């Protein structure tokens, strides 16, 4: 299995609305992240666009359908297609989420929550190892936002993630907005989440916006700018984990590219300030 070379750049999610911008000229980002499923088993203009962007920028492949939390195991055909895309693109890394997305033949296209139990952990460990074997690279696993908890959980989400990373050698995609959203929804301390993750395991950070939901819950909608509380949590994350690849993740209400580039500059400034701050 190959290792992931160090990379600490600042990037954006590549969205259709900005394809023309990226095709027209090199943009001031260090990498782009694409949704793997949008380019798997396809051709035509989408794949051509990905190839053209890849010539100018490093690409991270970010999936939403691997279903790492599935006790039924991983979809072989899906892994084969993802592997083919990874060989074509030579990505910085391949990531997906700590969740389940399908059961039997029913694919939900949502990142559904797991109970944090030994059984769920064993299933995730087996699936991560399997994915890494097929892809021949470490997987990078993201913490999703969640809106429910389960009475059978015997550990916290952060304990679950830390153990998963330790047992499989996978790396972590720390979604700071998701940590914040989940901390509000479930009443835990976001800093306790950060403190539990192994320093060397965090490969990438996601930043995004959220929206108010029912009954005081927050929803991870990715349709708004990063809020002040998430910026502050990001600063604390950089202080703990050091420079990490950082990306603004905007999936809806997509603004013009210059707006996202300006937001990304905010991340650069915060990261730069944290790197100059005296050690605690």
């Amino acid at each position, binding site marked *: 299995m190959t290792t992931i070379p160090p990379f600490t750049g600042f990037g954006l999610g590549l969205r259709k609305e900005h394809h023309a911008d990226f095709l027209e000229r090199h943009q001031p980002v260090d990498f782009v992240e694409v949704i793997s499923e949008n380019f798997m088993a396809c051709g035509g203009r989408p794949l051509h666009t990905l190839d053209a962007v890849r010539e100018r920028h490093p690409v991270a492949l970010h999936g939403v359908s691997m279903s790492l939390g599935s006790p039924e195991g991983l979809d072989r055909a899906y892994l084969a297609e993802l592997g083919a895309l990874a060989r074509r693109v030579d990505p910085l890394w391949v990531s997906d989420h700590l969740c389940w997305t399908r059961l039997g033949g029913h694919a939900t296209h949502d990142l559904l929550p797991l*109970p944090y139990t030994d059984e769920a952990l064993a299933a995730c460990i087996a699936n991560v190892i399997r994915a890494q074997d097929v892809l021949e690279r470490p997987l990078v696993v993201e913490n999703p936002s969640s809106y429910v908890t389960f009475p059978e959980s015997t550990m916290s989400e952060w304990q679950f993630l830390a153990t998963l990373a330790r047992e499989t050698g996978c790396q972590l995609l720390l979604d700071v907005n998701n940590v914040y959203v989940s901390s509000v929804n479930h009443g835990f301390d976001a800093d306790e989440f950060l403190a539990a993750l192994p320093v060397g395991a965090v490969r990438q950070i996601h930043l995004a916006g959220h929206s108010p939901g029912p009954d005081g819950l927050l929803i991870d909608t990715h349709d708004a700018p990063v809020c002040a509380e998430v910026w502050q949590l990001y600063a604390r994350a950089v202080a703990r984990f050091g420079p990490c690849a950082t990306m603004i993740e905007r999936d809806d209400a997509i603004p013009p590219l210059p707006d996202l580039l300006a937001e990304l500059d905010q991340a650069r400034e915060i990261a730069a300030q944290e790197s100059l701050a005296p050690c605690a």
Partner: protein
Amino acid sequence: MRLIARQQAFLAEVAAADEAALSPASPGMAIYRNAYRARLLSALETGFELTRRWTGEEAFAAAACHHVLATPPGSWTLDAYGASFPALLAELFADDPEVAELAWLEWHRQQAFAAPDRPTLDPAELAAAGLSEEDWANLRVTMAAGFAALPVTTDCTALWDHLTGDAAPGFQPSPVAGQSVLVWRVGFSPRHRPASRLEHEALAGLAAGQPLGVIAAATDPAQLGDWLAQWLSEGMFATASAAQCPEAAVLAES
């Protein structure tokens, strides 16, 4: 609770058709339930924009909700959700067959847009291959990226032109007999056009791997000659090979 049992119960609640039969959802479960349904409805709205304009918002929304409840997605890509929606529309709009036919056309153009790449057979290369009469009879082709064909009962291609053009009020699609619609992609561009049922059947035979000689035996020679010229000029074929002809076999690699 075992993990699979937890997931089965969770999914049953998220995808439930009869919400009234469920116990009141927690705010968190309501978020998952709403997100599941909204995502699939959005996929149908995006994938069938013209159909939605033609049927009107209310009728489309009702059909889409029916589809979401009756047909859970099975693929890992959301782009595949909607494959059976035209068939449902054919049932729901039985008195307005242009609805399902327009939806079929819209769906297959989208599929063609992102279909895996295939080459385009160069007519000049085929002409220069020096095929014998036997080679022509044995010639088999593979179809262009995204090729699909459907027998139709309305001029849905005219409806397409209307909705993507000036969309002047008062347009009504006309019934047609013995017609089909073809979809394929050349380069980055999906294409479609009407075709006779006989042309459709000839192309279906070629797409199924029948050699040109078999098609020719069932077709007027002059008509087949015209069709072949048209198919080649339109980029309808990806590759051609005549098993017993080494030169022609090279065309399969072009």
